[in-house]
């Protein structure tokens, strides 16, 4: 029983960064912008969060720093693609490449240093309830943030006027512009929100998941988050489901390695990446579903003609 709960807990921990990064990217893509820099923003958040936590000794300041670093880094992408109308695919890629390089350089002195970890929630009485206590009341704070964030984004996109506007921009920026909506401003805010989320996800990696700094520690999670958004056909609750499936795959392969299953560990390690490909294929086979849900102006540059 204890083992099952522990496995469930680790799955939640593995799923949380995927969920947060993917929810952020979902909002960005709903506004019609494709930011392939998630991996770069995430790793910058991870190094920023670790650094701030390590230097101040406070994991909370670390977490805040991760969010800010992610948001600032995404601003670079926003200026390029929104103000200078550069190719979004290429710019996103360069954000990832720059982030991986910059974080490696900044983090050189952090390698091998002990980090700080965000403490798990511990509510006297509630957290010690058998079985559900730990699962519901005893996880790390970012877990609760991720769930709240998903609910908030769901409500924002589909229950508020601003959310409707954001989605309409994603479907047709020219029509939205003709209606007098400030397309570029909305997109700036969306991209920065996505950056903050990716930064937070990175902060979770270096302050909760493995409280230390390892180069390239995001290990493709940013890319998997991007795939999750497609897999979820741009629906927040499906992102939640997808993130937990991937969390399970990630933890499953780790446990399989620990149990000494007679399969080379490299094959098990490649499972999350192969699983990503498989689910992408499964979801994109259904062309009508994808066509219907993809924001119509996704990835297209927009220059207001005033």
């Amino acid at each position: 029983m204890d083992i099952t709960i522990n496995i469930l807990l680790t799955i939640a921990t593995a799923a949380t960064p995927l969920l947060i990064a993917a929810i952020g990217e979902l909002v960005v893509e709903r506004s019609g912008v494709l930011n392939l820099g998630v991996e770069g923003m995430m790793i910058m958040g991870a190094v920023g969060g670790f650094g701030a936590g390590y230097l101040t000794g406070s994991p909370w300041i670390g977490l805040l720093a991760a969010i800010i670093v992610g948001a600032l880094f995404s601003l670079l992408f926003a200026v390029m693609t929104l103000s200078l109308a550069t190719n979004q695919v290429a710019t996103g890629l360069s954000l990832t490449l720059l982030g991986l390089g910059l974080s490696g350089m900044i983090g050189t002195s952090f390698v091998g240093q002990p980090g700080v970890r965000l403490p798990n929630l511990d509510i006297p009485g509630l957290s010690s309830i058998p079985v559900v206590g730990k699962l519901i009341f005893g996880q790390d704070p970012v877990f609760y943030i991720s769930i709240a964030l998903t609910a908030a984004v769901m409500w924002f996109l589909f229950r508020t006027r601003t959310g409707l506007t954001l989605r309409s921009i994603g479907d047709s920026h020219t029509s939205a512009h003709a209606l007098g909506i400030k397309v570029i401003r909305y997109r700036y805010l969306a991209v920065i929100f996505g950056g903050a989320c990716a930064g937070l996800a990175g902060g979770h990696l270096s302050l909760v998941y493995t409280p230390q700094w390892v180069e390239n520690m995001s290990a493709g999670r940013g890319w998997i988050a991007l795939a999750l958004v497609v897999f979820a056909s741009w629906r927040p609750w499906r992102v939640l489901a997808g993130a937990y499936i991937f969390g399970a795959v990630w933890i499953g392969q780790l446990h399989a390695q620990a149990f000494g299953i007679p399969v080379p560990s490299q094959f098990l390690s490649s499972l999350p990446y192969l699983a990503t490909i498989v689910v992408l294929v499964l979801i994109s086979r259904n062309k009508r579903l994808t066509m219907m849900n993809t924001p119509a102006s996704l990835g297209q540059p927009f220059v207001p003609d005033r």
Partner: protein
Amino acid sequence: MRIELVKRPQRSALFSMLSPFIAFALTIIAGAIMFALLGVNPLDAFNIYFIQPISEVWQLHELAIKAAPLILIAVGLSVCYKANIWNIGAEGQFIFGAIFGSIIPVLFPQFEGPFVIPLMLLLGMIGGALYASIPAFLKTRFSTNEILTSLMLVYVAQLFLDWLVRGPWRDPQGHGFPQTIQFGDWAVLPQLMPDDGRANWGFVFALVAAVAIWLMMSRMLKGFEVRVLGSSPRAGRFAGFGFNRMVFFTFLLSGALAGLAGISEVSGAIGQLQPVISPGYGFTAIIVAFLGRLNPLGIVAAGLVLALTYLGGEAVQTALGISDKVARVFQGMLLFFVLGCDTLIHYRIRLIGLALTNGAAKLEAAPKLEEAR
């Protein structure tokens, strides 16, 4: 303050030529700021980074060794990107090319003779092309996003290579080191001028590939097809150019070239398979392709520049104790500035102050709008 873009009536030939140079200048400025922040005199740093690594003949050979894979891969990618098809998994295709090509020297070391190298190169190209055919197949058959699948396959390829050199292909006499046996004499790509330095035939392959692709893109129907389908898929369909065929063509071509780069690197520069055989050539080549303006001849120049950033990174690490990740930062900044400067080709950029100029801008823009229509 706000940035406003005004569309040019036609693309500016001047900025089309200048933009890589402006981008390079901006990178240097940003790099100077970075070095200053790190507490190093920027002039000293630049001397160590950009000048010293190419001041002797043998160092030029090292430059050619680093530039060869970058150019080979980037030339292939440029065709993909021109067709608006996004293969970003060249790193994986590079690795599979290296693995396929190494079948001969690792599993059949008794094969000797002048046919060994051509066979290895051919196998390398097949390996890279086969690996690239996976995202191409998934895209054409299931319309799966090729960006994500090709990238995921990079991680898979890296893990597969890791398993090979630690498991079945490990050198039994290698004292447990994760590496294959050293390639035999016939399986090593010959050096061009052994008296001067280590540069091998890989660099020649890169130049030949660049010229060949340049001819194809500018003088042949296939190149026209690529450009039409890239800029307007609808027009391409009317012209009877198949999009799916194009996806396969560009992926197989870029995969084969990446595979050739992989086996050339392993056979020429390393001499055996190791867990890591590339310092990110497949990704850096994306930067090379854009810096070279997706033009094969421009890519040769861009490949040399990016090769220099690798050498410079190693130089500042030994001389100044700065992490060689500084190379990655330079490469990333360079790509950013290139993309930003490319905006100048199609747009005039105007900085607009707050409210005051708003009305004036509108008045000015109105006739331009008419023009555009």
